[in-house]
């Protein structure tokens, strides 16, 4: 089957090892890892996230959550006060008291994450020991885990990575020791919208891969079991620590591009199919109609986006796969792609698909990067919420990157939705220009 647009071959693109990457440090206009709680608490529906931090942490999560949701949330902050710092109160005893108060109030909670923050890290409050201690009291009613979402250690989506890494350590191995859990051949790792999970399940079934599970599970009790030959497939490019934990447990990563856009999704499924020795003809038979439908849907957005230039400020870590999709499938011109950090190994397949002339930057010095952006004068800027309106006021068209982590964008049937997210600001601009 021919694709609608000719694609550059991977060989024509430059080898990822040779790329010069601009490394900067300075002011970062990026959220910290606590922000991930906003989608994680919706994903694992019986889990509660207790940030152990300051009023700033509470204010950040509240502000980033779109400023106050009306339902009682499944996250909260244990706000450290001066009594805790002055040693007047034993911080550990205080934490135990707060956890007791919380779990009494919410008997429906099956899993509690103690989430470390900048202040808790700096005062060296050991949350892993606290989790161990509290587990003794609350097991089996509640499992208590911990991870750090602090800004001194994590950036934005790394919070999800830290959370999933903590959860991955809980994955049992060998079903014979854990009869309640099922052993899987394939673990699909990273938060996906439920609708995308369901689509992916159908495709795996059609391909003939039947023993698989999504991680994190929707309910904390549904954690699958690792077998001796379990392989895993990442859905997000920011799961460094989680992958390391799984590697240590003996699971094998299937190298693949990320399932964004038609090409990325196809490459992702094809990598899985290959790993399980599935006949390429069968794969083509399964994928072809989905590819065709997705390309048809992309056509409308391509007319808007083709030839337009785009600049990425570092934010969600999705920048490289997104740039690859927008360039190769929609014909956008890439200027600079900024990422908080670049994991060369997990992004190897993606980097190979990028054109040689694009500049990549890692880290951030926001003022300098703004200067470069103004200099490029791109047709579209992808950035965080702090920068978007000021750039719009300067006459630039922007796309907020945070929306990309809240919206179902992975897979064949979401490729056009993803493209539309980028087309919308441009379409809007033309409406006002008329």
């Amino acid at each position, binding site marked *: 089957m021919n694709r609608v647009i000719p694609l550059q071959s991977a060989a024509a693109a430059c080898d990822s090892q040779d790329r010069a990457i601009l490394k900067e440090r300075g002011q970062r206009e990026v959220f910290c890892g606590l*922000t991930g709680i906003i989608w994680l608490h919706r994903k694992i529906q019986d889990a509660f996230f207790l940030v152990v931090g300051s009023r700033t942490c509470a204010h950040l999560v509240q502000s980033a959550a779109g400023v106050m949701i009306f339902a009682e949330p499944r996250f909260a902050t244990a706000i450290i006060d001066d009594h805790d710092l002055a040693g007047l109160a034993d911080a550990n005893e205080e934490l135990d008291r707060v956890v007791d108060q919380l779990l009494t109030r919410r008997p429906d909670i099956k899993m509690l994450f103690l989430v470390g923050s900048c202040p808790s890290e700096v005062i060296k409050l050991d949350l892993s020991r606290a989790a161990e201690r509290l587990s003794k009291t609350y097991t089996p009613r509640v499992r208590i885990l911990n991870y750090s979402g602090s800004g001194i250690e994590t950036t934005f989506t790394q919070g999800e990575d830290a959370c999933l890494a903590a959860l991955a350590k809980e994955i049992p191995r060998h079903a014979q020791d854990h009869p309640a859990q099922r052993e899987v051949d394939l673990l699909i790792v990273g938060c996906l919208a439920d609708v995308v999970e369901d689509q992916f399940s159908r495709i795996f079934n059609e391909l003939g891969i039947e023993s698989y599970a999504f991680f994190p599970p929707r309910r904390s009790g549904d954690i699958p079991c690792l077998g001796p030959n379990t392989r895993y497939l990442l859905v997000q490019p920011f799961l460094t620590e989680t992958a390391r934990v799984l590697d240590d447990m003996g699971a094998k990563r299937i190298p693949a591009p990320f399932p964004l856009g038609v090409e990325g999704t196809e490459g992702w499924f094809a990598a899985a199919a290959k790993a399980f020795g599935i006949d390429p003809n069968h794969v083509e038979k399964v994928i072809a109609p989905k590819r065709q439908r997705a390309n048809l849907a992309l056509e409308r957005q391509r007319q808007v986006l083709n030839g337009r230039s785009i600049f990425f400020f570092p934010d969600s870590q999705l920048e490289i796969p997104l740039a690859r999709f927008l360039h190769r499938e929609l014909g956008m011109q890439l200027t600079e792609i900024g990422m908080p950090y670049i994991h060369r190994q997990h992004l190897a397949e993606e980097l190979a698909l990028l054109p040689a002339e694009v500049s990549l930057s890692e880290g951030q010095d926001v003022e300098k990067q703004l200067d470069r952006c103004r200099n490029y004068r791109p047709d579209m800027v992808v950035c965080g919420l702090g920068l978007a309106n000021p750039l719009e006021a300067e006459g630039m068209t922007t796309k907020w990157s945070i929306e990309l982590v809240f919206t179902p964008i992975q897979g064949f049937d979401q490729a056009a939705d993803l493209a539309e997210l980028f087309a919308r600001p441009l379409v809007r601009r033309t409406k006002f220009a008329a």
Partner: protein
Amino acid sequence: MKLTLWTYEGPPHIGAMRIATAMEGVHYVLHAPQGDTYADLLFTMIERMNKRPPVTYTTFQARDLGGDTAELFKDAARSAYARFKPDLLMVGASCTAELIQDDPGGLAAALQLSVPVLPLELPAYQKKENWGAAETFYQMVRLLGKDYVLSPGEKRKPRPAGLPPSCNILGPTALGFRHRDDLVEIRKLLRQIGVRVNVVAPLGAKPEDISRLHEADFNVVLYPEVANSAAQWLSKNFGQPSTKTIPIGFNATRAFIEEVCTLAQIHCDIDELTKRSRARWYALSVDSTYLTNKRVFIFGDATHAIAAAKVASQEMGFQVVGLGTYSRELAREVREAASQYGIEALITDDYLEVEQRITELQPELILGSQMERHIAKRLKIPCAVISAPIHVQDFPARYSPQMGFEGANVLFDTWVHPLMMGLEEHLIGMFREDFEFHDGAAPSHLGHGHQRTPANEANVASEPTPVPEVAVANGAPVTESVWEPEAQKELNKIPFFVRGKAKRNTERFAIERGLSTISLETLYDAKAHFGR
């Protein structure tokens, strides 16, 4: 350590940012880790500002902690100074940097910049946003005013003959609840009275304006949470008195005008100024009689809560059944205000406590912040927003002040619109079997978005009722009363928007009298007992 689901105020450095962002020619270098830049979006997204707040964050990381975070701060301060060329540099630490004790003030002083440096110490583990704003403003007024301080015993020079009286307007900040529009309204009022405005601060002021504050005859304090401490310092050191009346509501605006005239030593025709106000007449018009003694619960910052209680009680004819604030600094004032309504003030920053109090009181209207709006939504009680914490809806595109005569008009509209309109309420009472007036029908002016579903209706019915164990009948205390079918049927004839209260009242009445069943008679006995 305190378990917190939602917070009413941010940390104190957010208050400092509100001052820096309100002003011109000021830059704030904040020693802070990555993530603290979230604060920018409060201004760019919630307030929809078209520029970034003038703040540089040092963004230190874990790996810097063993090394030289102080050097990182100096670099950031130096390059911010070079890039933004401010007339004044504010320096300070967010909560995490406070713990590593780098002393931003000392470090900045060592840079020997050629502009004033304002070092801020805002204890993040004790204090909150409004305190941070007040402290920052006070420190800035002191720093830039100290050269003009009257020497001990020295009297303020009288205003030269022929010059009109002048005042400063103190308090409006960035990210303030309707500050922008209040300011327009108060400026207009002062112009009509014949008082010249010397400086407005912090909103729109430059550092050089702050050093001119002493030139005014007196100060108009619009937001005591932010401006009280600065105004006290100005009073002490320059002999400038300040206004105490907050011009929210028709009566308070009149009182404010009188106070300004006294301080300015001029006369003005207040009746002439009030002529075009509508709020008072609207409240007097017969259509408003249905507002009489509506039970209202009020919660917000101290200034707005106290003012709202006055307006609710004296200008709208409501009954204030609850009054509270999260501003602990002004708790005394709120307690005093509450005692005038024969109630006890709720002083808390715990959202759950507020929710519990509202649930107990079952008011007919809530005047609160966006947090209470969510409580109101869940409990299906009409609500209007009168105070920060700030939300994108608190920056409406239209002109919408809270202060002055136009502010009073805005209050009338905003508080009355969530309620069922007078005639509609009566019609529902009379024709409740009419298909358009069925239980599920929302107030007609609120549109389809507010329609009730059978599911959330059931929720209301099955809501647990707090059951006090009081009365003893036949030896055993009655803790629960069962509704007889006939009484239940009659209960369902009561309009849905008062049914919850009627149900609770009747059950309480029954339990207090040790009745294990509720009959038709019990329902009407309770109605007679609780009737206003």
